């Protein structure tokens, strides 16, 4: 390992020689004291502390594979979609070679956002500040008054900063700034088996319905990511009103549904997926349900997946991508400071669905999830009120209980990997184990800096 100071060039993209300043390392917080996960204990400081948040951007978001978009949003060269990786604005675009690329949405000259549209089609991204212009492969193609730059100005060294890796998994586009990250499929690990219950119904795959729901929440992003990884427990209480109007009797689910059996998957990568296995614990749309060929799905995916992860489940790809199989809802929890997140939610449908079934899925999802959804309205209330109580000295540093299902996780021989009971904090403990380890490990971009003693807890 070299001892030269890290340069921005240590970040992916454009590796160059001299035109970079050394990054000034930020002090690291040792987050170990905030956890005793073997006993299911979590200190609330991790949800509200500013220094912890800054470190998350460096050590959790920057090194991880992050969800960007659905492949079906790009059909021809020049199509673009803008999003965020952590708090970094990015452009995802299809180049002339039909390859998807993602760039930092910031001009190399003064950092101005070079693309201010949410989506569209273009030949070039031209900065509206001084006119630096970049093509869809990120190359700097025009610098007004270029003759006034010194001789050592190398235009080809000042392209948009590109992600280190971009890949897709069954229609989902992910990218990472981390050149050392394992391939996407390895990063998804054992969760892929569960994720496929949503993405792999047939060889045609999925497509995204037009439009993205975007809304703000006054809550730390981990509240949502953790809940989607692990928390079926809240459903019967938080969503009691929705369950009531959706149950056939109008009086709410029967006891055997409330007490539904189910499993919850957890792994060392921080992913989680929970699902009931009671055949009548279903809250899917009737039109979609009637169209679905469950026999064909059993053939393709096996009984265990049809009866488990494909039901009314929920999952999180660490760190901030979550999904709901029966709703066709996929979403990313963009961090916006320790106290805020922005939810971006897409609706996906099977390409092979007839139009009326696709539409039924779309409508079902927007009536249940999304900002006006009868389920999601109540999630918003929970997360904002949890965050609102996190700022007191006593309330903000109290120990939270993540003990549900401790000691009950195993390999059940039906569902691959480690699973526990449906009503469990198992995947939340897995999520925070991974989060803690990333937070206490210098990321690739810190490795070339002079060794900081605080980096080794």
């Amino acid at each position, binding site marked *: 390992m070299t001892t030269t100071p890290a340069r921005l060039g240590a970040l992916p993209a454009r590796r160059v020689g001299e035109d970079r300043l050394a990054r000034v390392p930020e002090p690291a917080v040792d987050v170990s004291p905030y956890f005793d996960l073997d006993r299911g204990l979590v200190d609330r400081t991790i949800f509200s502390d500013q220094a912890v948040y800054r470190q998350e951007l460096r050590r959790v978001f920057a090194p991880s594979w992050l969800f960007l978009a659905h492949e079906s949003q790009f059909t021809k060269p020049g199509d673009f979609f803008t999003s965020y990786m952590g708090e970094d604005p990015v452009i995802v675009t299809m180049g002339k070679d039909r390859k998807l690329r993602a760039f930092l949405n910031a001009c190399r000259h003064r950092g101005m956002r070079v693309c*201010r549209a*949410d989506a569209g089609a273009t030949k070039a991204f031209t900065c509206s500040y001084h006119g630096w212009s970049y093509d869809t492969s990120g190359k700097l193609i025009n610098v007004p008054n270029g003759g006034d730059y010194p001789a050592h100005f190398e235009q080809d060294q000042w392209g948009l900063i590109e992600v280190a890796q971009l890949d897709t998994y069954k229609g989902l586009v992910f990218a990472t700034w981390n050149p050392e990250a394992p391939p996407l499929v390895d990063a998804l690990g054992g969760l892929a088996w569960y994720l496929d219950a949503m993405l792999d119904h047939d060889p045609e795959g999925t497509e995204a319905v037009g439009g993205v729901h975007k809304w703000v929440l006054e809550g730390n992003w981990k509240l949502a990511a953790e809940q989607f990884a692990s928390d079926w427990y809240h459903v019967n*209480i938080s969503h009691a*009103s929705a369950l009531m109007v959706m149950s056939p009797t109008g009086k709410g689910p029967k006891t055997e549904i409330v007490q539904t059996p189910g499993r919850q998957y957890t792994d060392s990568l921080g992913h989680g997926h929970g699902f009931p296995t009671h055949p009548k614990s279903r809250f899917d749309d009737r039109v979609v349900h009637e169209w679905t060929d469950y026999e064909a799905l059993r053939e393709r995916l096996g009984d265990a997946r049809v009866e488990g992860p494909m039901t009314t489940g929920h999952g999180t790809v660490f760190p901030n991508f979550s999904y709901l199989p029966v709703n066709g809802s996929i979403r990313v929890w963009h961090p916006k400071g320790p106290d805020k997140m922005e939810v971006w939610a897409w609706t996906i449908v099977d390409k092979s669905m007839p139009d009326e079934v696709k539409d039924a899925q779309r*409508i079902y999802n*927007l*009536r249940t999830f999304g900002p*006006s959804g009868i389920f999601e*309205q109540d999630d918003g209330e929970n997360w904002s009120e949890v965050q609102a109580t996190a700022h007191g000295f006593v309330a903000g540093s109290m120990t939270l209980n993540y003990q549900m299902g401790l000691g009950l996780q195993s390999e059940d021989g039906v569902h691959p990997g480690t699973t526990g009971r449906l009503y469990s904090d198992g995947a939340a403990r897995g999520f925070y184990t991974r989060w803690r380890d990333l937070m206490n490990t210098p990321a690739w971009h810190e490795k070339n800096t002079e060794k900081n003693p605080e980096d080794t807890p």
Partner: protein
Amino acid sequence: MSIHPPDTPRTTAPAVDEDMRLHFEVQRLYALEAQLLDQHRYADWLELFTDDLHYWAPVRTNRLRRQQALADGSPGEVAIFDETKASLAWRIRRFDSGMAWAEDPPSRTRHLITNILVWPAGEPGEYVAESSFLCYRNRLEREVDLYAGGRTDQLRRDPDDGRLLIARRTILLDQNVLLAKNISTFL
């Protein structure tokens, strides 16, 4: 649609009279509607709509000026609301469950409806009305949300009693990222 409102000086006096009567009627309908919503009388509110209602609020995206045609969501895309009278009734039943936590304790809302323009359209007894809304929501101790935008309604007289009913509503909320944790009222 003409860029001029229907009551230009060129119209004859009886027509002006008719326009004023219609405008007054629509304004009163919207004031009543706002009051019902602000008093959380949702079942009564629903009575203001026809049975074949389509109640729709598309999402708004930022698009380059040359692609402005795509800035408002199209039918069949992700939307904030895409409702029938039955699905609105379903949403309303939820509030009556006693466990709809996002509205329990209830929010304080004030729906302000203004900039009303209305003109006859289609069959006799059918009208198009445009209006602007500002809905202030204050919730719990200090949460404040503002929902502002425009509505285009198709209005139709009830064949029995001649009351104006809302048959179709398109809501354009003037926000890109919705700046609220949810929408638990109606617009």
